């Protein structure tokens, strides 16, 4: 299948000894000029790139308290060293969060701190050289920005912020990552990550209406650009045709249908994902997100609901109000934005949905907390609602549910291995190896409870697991949407 070895799954988690440099050759394809320029980045490595990079670093530190404090305060205590799934899966020491930060911190110290200017060797400060840039390119594309390290650092140092900054600097000198930048370009040009134009989208939705009609005999609508609808649904474009994502979309539609909520998708804002976060570019992040405000105003909707997607929910929950708010034109009785799981959960609480758990009796389910949802957002009003609400939705739809071990769920969840802009075939090795800690926790519930369904609420997680599960000898269709379970359980025709 590949020219690398899939890591073994063990009885107990083992912290590997370090093996320096084993992942040094892992690098994604470099963006071509046509991927760089639409985002406002130089097409290739600029001439005086060293000074451009150092200057950009200074600007980023000046505009971000997080970055400045994180670069200054690390005491090298080592607490984070065994927390990254990429370290656990590869044993490359540069995948230890602190070592990853040090790739950037060493340059920061050299140019922006007294000790680094005077005694570079003593404090591990380095000049900005081509070797350093190459290392950045390699290892800052082995971080999925999952924030697991940040949970366990005594100062909350978040390596995700450091990788975003490093990628922003690399884009500024002209060495971007093809995968992310090409996708952001597609959003600008066509409207979504998949490059699905409006007619194709309409076609797909019409097809779905027919499929659901055939399967259930009920006219469940998949409206597009419907003015005056109550809810605008913003969902990752993968939901429109990738498996198992599409079952989730069908689930959302059935929930709206049974609850009698008029909803619509938008062809102008047909994408929840915002890969600009991965590359740390707030200009592009704003540009991608603003389409949603425009669509909401244009369609005259009252509420915005976000479909199953991890980093998109982070951008929506944490950043939308800042980037594309204020939302004073929307219904103040609902949170803006609202997660689809929050909406379904509320409807279940109110008895608005008829769910038959036995429809999922062929499934023994576990739930993967997606990293961005778990550690960068909330659902409901209680801290930790992001763990409770999706599980409550699942448990309302299935009889057999088992959580994975405590150190691998909730705030300690392991990333799927494909987040943060790494979901590309040119990074297959790091994706497979980075999935090892999650796969190991999964193995235990498979062995102990016969789990055969891994539910998730993130488009990236779903695609990643569909790809890596077979490497670990599990069937690819084990991964499914939470709203795929809702879709099976919901009894249409009972509430009309």
């Amino acid at each position, binding site marked *: 299948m590949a020219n690398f070895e899939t890591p073994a799954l063990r009885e107990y988690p083992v912290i590997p000894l*370090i093996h320096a440099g084993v992942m040094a050759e892992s690098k994604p394809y470099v963006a071509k000029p046509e991927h760089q320029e639409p985002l406002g980045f130089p097409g290739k490595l600029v001439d005086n790139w060293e000074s451009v990079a150092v200057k950009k670093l200074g600007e980023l530190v000046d*505009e*971000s*308290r*997080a970055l*400045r*404090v*994180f670069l*200054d*305060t*690390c*005491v*090298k*205590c*080592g*607490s*984070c*060293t*065994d*927390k990254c799934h990429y370290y656990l899966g590869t044993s490359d020491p540069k995948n*230890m969060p602190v*070592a990853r930060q040090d790739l950037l911190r060493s340059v920061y110290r050299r140019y922006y*701190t007294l*000790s680094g200017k005077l005694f570079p*060797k*003593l*404090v*591990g400060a380095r000049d900005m050289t081509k070797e350093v840039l190459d290392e950045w390119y390699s290892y800052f594309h082995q971080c999925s920005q999952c*924030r697991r390290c*940040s*949970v*366990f*650092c*005594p*100062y*909350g*140092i*978040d390596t995700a*912020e450091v990788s975003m900054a490093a990628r922003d600097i690399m884009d500024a000198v002209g060495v971007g990552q093809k995968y992310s930048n090409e996708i952001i370009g597609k959003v600008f040009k066509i409207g979504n990550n998949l490059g699905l134009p409006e007619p194709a989208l309409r076609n797909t939705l019409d097809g779905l209406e027919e499929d659901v009609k055939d399967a259930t005999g009920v006219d469940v609508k998949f409206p597009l650009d419907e003015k005056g609808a109550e809810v605008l649904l913003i969902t990752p474009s993968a939901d429109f045709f990738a498996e198992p994502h599409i079952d989730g979309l069908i689930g959302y539609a059935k929930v709206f249908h049974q609850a009698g909520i008029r909803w619509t998708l938008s062809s102008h804002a047909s994408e929840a994902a915002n890969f600009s976060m991965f590359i740390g570019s*707030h200009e592009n992040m704003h540009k991608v997100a603003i389409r949603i*405000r425009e669509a909401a*105003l244009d369609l005259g909707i009252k509420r915005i609901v976000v479909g199953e997607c991890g980093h998109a929910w982070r951008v929506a*929950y*944490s*950043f939308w*109000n*800042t*980037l*594309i708010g*204020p939302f*004073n*034109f929307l219904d103040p009785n609902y949170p803006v934005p609202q997660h689809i799981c929050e909406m379904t959960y509320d409807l279940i609480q109110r008895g608005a949905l008829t769910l038959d758990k036995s429809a999922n009796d062929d499934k023994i389910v576990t739930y993967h907390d997606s990293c961005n949802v*778990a550690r*960068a*957002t*909330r659902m409901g*009003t209680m*801290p*930790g609602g992001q763990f409770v609400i999706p599980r409550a939705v699942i448990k309302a739809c299935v009889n057999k549910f088992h959580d994975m071990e405590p150190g691998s769920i909730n*705030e300690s969840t392991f990333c799927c291995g494909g987040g943060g802009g790494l979901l590309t075939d040119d990074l297959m090795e790091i994706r497979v190896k980075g999935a090892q800690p999650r796969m190991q926790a999964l193995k235990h519930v498979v062995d102990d409870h016969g789990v055969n369904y891994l539910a998730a609420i993130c488009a990236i997680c779903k695609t990643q697991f569909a790809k890596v599960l077979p490497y670990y000898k599990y069937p690819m269709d084990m991964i499914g949407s939470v709203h795929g379970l809702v879709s099976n359980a919901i009894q249409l025709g009972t509430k009309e």
Partner: protein
Amino acid sequence: MPAVTIVYAVLFYVATAVLVGGVAYKVYVYASTPAPLKIPTTPAPTTLLGVAGRMLREVTVFESLFKSNKWIWLFGIMFHFALLLVLLQHLRYFTQPVWFWVVLEQPFGVYAGFLMVVGLLGLWARRFLVDRVRYITSPSDHLMLALLLAIAVSGLAMKFVFHTNIIALKQFFLGLLSFQLEPLPADPVLLIHLALVATLMIIFPISKLLHAPGVFFSPTRNQVDNPREHRHVAGWSASINNPGGR
């Protein structure tokens, strides 16, 4: 006045100025650097009071570290708690009359010195024994531990072996506080101890010791989780002006 007295007086004035000025400057820089986006590590408190509690737990019981690694936590808490007791105990060299709670704390302060040494040795041992920690250690990390250990050991040496004239020492520091020179006892161990302490004070604002003020400014720990309820803007995000709406 003997030359050592003058040299040490100058040294302590300079060290104090660097420590206070340097930390104040760093705090100013941290406070004035904007945090444009909401990035608390969740689950996070949804109120300011909750955040104060989270921060208090971080700086008193090292909550996140406890979740992460019991060995680092044990040695770390041992060292820091002992350091705090020792520092408080040292107040008696700067106050006349000595505050009553410093007197009460006295017996603990003495033994805290040993605890501090054990904590530091434990932390240092990790830098040799755990391959991951060895990998991330720079020379400056060793030097910092060596410096603190040398301070602790030279202090304990004076307490239990090479006694110095505490009365005269106190006169020296009280004198510094009122800008008068009093002779400093010229015992070698004392001079070493004091020089090391002054060194620590001077490097504080330019080293990783900035974690002490820094932790209070860490956005992942000090932000309230309420982005939907309150529109947060700062720095570049404050200049966003979106058309439409009401």
